[in-house]
Structures are given as C-alpha cells and as structure tokens.
C-alpha cells in the first residue's frame, strides 16, 4: 500500500483540496491534519453576524460531503516538521508519518502586540477565539480595537451593535485605507462614527494597565483609554514554522506556480508538494506574472480545487498531468464585508491601482456607490457599497482586462 496524500491544515483550503482530489478520481489514502479541534468551518461570520449572536461550531461548519467521508481527519494535531527528501512529517506527539504527496494549507495566525500578557486581550482568527471574545462583548463594555483593517472594523461594528463603547486605535490615516484607498476609507470611517465608534488614527498602543485584568490602554501620545477588552487585529503572519528546514521559497508565505505546485528557493517546481489558501504566493495571470498572497475568502476554494485537480492528475499517472498543469488558472479575487448597514463587495485587486487611479463609476459615495480601481487604462478592481446587481458586469471587465 502506498503512503497517503497528507494535507496539513484542516480549514477551508484543506477541505476543498481533499474534495477536489476525490473529484479528480484519487481513491487512495487521504489524511488531513489540523491543530484546531474543530472540523473545517467558515471564518468570516466570526467577526460579523455570528459574533453578534451565538458563536458555535454548528453555526459556521462547512457541510460534510459524501466524497470525503473516508478521509482520515487528524484534528487537534499539529505538524512540527517535514522532510521533503524522506517524504515524512512529524506531529506534536512525535509520530512520524510518511506521505506520497503533501499539501500545505496552514494559513495565517494573527500578529499580536508586543506587550505583556493580561486578561482581556483577544484576537479573532479561530472559533475558539470568537467564543472567548463573545462572552466579553456585553453592553457597556469598553472595547478597544488595535488595528483598523477589515477584521478590526467588523469587530468594532459588531461590538457597537452589542452595546459596547468602542474605540479603534490604528497608525493608519484612515481605516481600511491600504486595501481600499482614501475615497472609500474616509466614507467608511464617517459611517462608523455616525454609529458612535471613536477613532484614534495615527496612534499606536504603548502600554496596557490593570491588576488582574485590563483596565486602561495607554496610547503613544499619552492618552489613556479606559478599557475592559482589547481586540488585536493588526495583521497576520504565515504559519510556515513547520517548513523551516525545507528548501521551499518561504519569503512571504510559500511560493507556488499557477498549478499551485511548491517552488524551492533554487526555482525547482515540485510535482509532489502543493500550496493552497492564504499561505500561497502565486502569480495570477489575469493581472500579471508577479506572485502574490491574496487573503480573500474565495482563494482557498479556488486554489484548493486547482491543486486537487493537478495533484489528482499527477497521482493518476495517466498521461494527462502535463496538460492539466498547463491549463490557465486565473481566479477572480472576491471579497465582501459587513459593517453596520454597509454591505461592501469587491472583485479584483484594488491594491494594484495607480495612486490617482481610483474613481466613482456609479452612484453616490454617501449612499450606494461603485468605485473603480485602474492601473493605467485597465480596470483592476471594483468595490461596491450596495448596488449588487450593477456590480456584476464589472467582474467580466476585470477578467477581460479592459478599461
């Protein structure tokens, strides 16, 4: 019997890869190893609707499919190292497991403030994180958000909805300005402020004070914010520690080609190691040949399906591998966000726009609007606040590469 295909990371990317491998006809042994104890679940609701109601696995679990019923799920197990020559991995209890092919799906972990531990500090990546935070978001609680990205602003909106007093502290000039640009960022701040969220922009957190638990957050300009809860949403780091001894290219995630095959530091493409999801840095020829990591929800699914079909063809050894691997792979980046009544939706990569390439395409910024992001003449992204049906045709324009 040959060794199993091993997928490390039992979240969305790992799940979709497993399903796609089965769809591609691979019927052999398949093991998915994940350090969380929960079966794969959907993360976005953890900062939005689910955080404002009841946080449970049931509320966010991905439905199990018949095709993956015979997968060996090793949950609550962390992989500590891998040997790409010997084709083995080691888990946290010391077990050495062989593999025939390896899929890297270990995603990200939240970056934390470099400050001493104290009760009341939170981050939001996992279901367990959200459960712990939910209990503290009681009416009247004084909540400080460190970071004004999407997750920070979503948690701020949810906490406000739950009756907390909310202050967002961030070194940025506007919330969510890096991904969205100034125009929308300013408008989103205005809407948050209208709902009673306070901002301390251009500021960082210098110190946390309190006895048994957090009582005050001290900013770099000396301002003191009374606080019961601090939520840190200051970005993420890639979970590449277990790959440290390999020769894979680990500069910002794990480098992969458009077939999601891992690439070593000397440029060699591996047929037996794949990378999917938030951790994958790969070129999307819809835009250019620059490899990028894209932390959007559709990426684990699209890259997982892609990796599953290429790896499936390699394992089948039926002469189709080269052809499948050479197929064009240009997933449309898609993301959305809910903050108060704002329902934001985006296609493409807004970050690629020229500094002066952001303009209103339809609607009114103070109500419902579609904003276009241009690199030269070319539309590289659109972001809509509302206007959902009107947004869809722009998706074709981005994919077609026209202005």
């Amino acid at each position: 019997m040959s060794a199993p295909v091993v997928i490390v990371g039992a979240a969305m990317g790992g799940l979709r890869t497993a399903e796609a491998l089965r769809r591609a006809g691979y019927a052999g042994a398949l093991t998915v190893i994940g350090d969380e104890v929960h079966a794969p679940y959907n993360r976005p609701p953890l900062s939005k609707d689910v955080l404002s109601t009841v946080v449970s696995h049931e509320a966010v679990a991905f439905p199990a499919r018949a095709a993956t019923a015979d997968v060996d799920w090793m949950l609550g197990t962390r992989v500590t190292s891998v040997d790409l020559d010997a084709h083995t991995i080691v888990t946290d209890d010391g077990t050495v497991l062989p593999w025939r092919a390896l899929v890297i799906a270990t995603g990200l972990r939240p970056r934390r403030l470099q400050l001493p531990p104290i009760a009341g500090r939170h981050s939001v990546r996992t279901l367990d994180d959200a459960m712990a935070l939910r209990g503290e978001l009681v009416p009247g609680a004084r909540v400080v958000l460190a970071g004004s990205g999407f997750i920070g602003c979503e948690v701020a909106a949810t906490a406000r909805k739950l009756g907390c007093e909310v202050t967002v502290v961030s070194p940025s000039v506007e919330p969510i300005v890096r991904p969205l640009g100034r125009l929308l960022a300013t408008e989103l701040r205005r809407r948050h402020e209208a709902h009673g969220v306070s901002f301390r922009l251009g500021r960082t957190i210098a110190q946390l004070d309190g006895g048994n638990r957090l009582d005050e957050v001290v900013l770099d300009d000396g301002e003191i914010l009374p606080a019961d809860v601090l939520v840190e949403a200051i970005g993420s780091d890639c979970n590449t520690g277990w790959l440290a001894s390999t020769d894979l290219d680990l500069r910002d995630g794990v480098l992969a080609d458009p077939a999601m095959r891992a690439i070593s530091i000397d440029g060699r493409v591996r047929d037996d190691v794949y990378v999917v999801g938030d951790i994958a840095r790969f070129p999307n020829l819809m835009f250019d040949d620059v490899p990028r990591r894209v932390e959007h929800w559709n990426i684990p699914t699209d890259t997982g399906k892609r990796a599953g079909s290429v790896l499936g063809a390699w394992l089948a050894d039926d002469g189709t591998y080269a052809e499948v691997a050479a197929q064009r792979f240009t997933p449309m980046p898609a993301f959305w966000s809910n903050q108060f009544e704002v329902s934001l939706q985006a296609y493409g990569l807004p970050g690629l726009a020229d500094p002066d390439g952001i303009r209103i395409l339809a609607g009114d910024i103070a109500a419902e609007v579609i904003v276009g992001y241009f690199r030269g003449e070319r539309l590289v992204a659109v972001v809509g606040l509302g206007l959902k049906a009107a947004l869809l045709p722009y998706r074709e324009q981005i994919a077609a590469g026209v202005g």
Partner: protein
Amino acid sequence: MIKIQVDMALCQHYGQCVFEAPNVFHLNDDDKLEYLAEADDSERDNVEAAVDVCPMQAIRIVE
C-alpha cells in the same frame, strides 16, 4: 432532478452563485436573489460550485 434551498434569512444577495450556476441563480433589478428550487441533474456540478462560493454558506442541495 436536484432540489435547491437557499436560506433567505442568511442570503446577502451577493450574487456569487450567479457566476457558477447562471441557469439556476439570478439577481433581479432590486438586487434580490431569485433561484430555481429544482433543476436538471446536469446542473449538479454548477450548483455544487455555487454552494462552495456562497459567502454566507446559504445554499443547500437537498438530497
């Protein structure tokens, strides 16, 4: 035939499903999702793909 259910309490009318299964899902002029509750078996793969891409995980194929 396959039977399709969308939890309209969850659906945010994002229309991602429309791209995967345009014969089944549709956004009307009021930005509201409309869909067929039953579709031919030949639509199964497309609807499965729609299930995957729905951000709210609101779509179910009822077996």
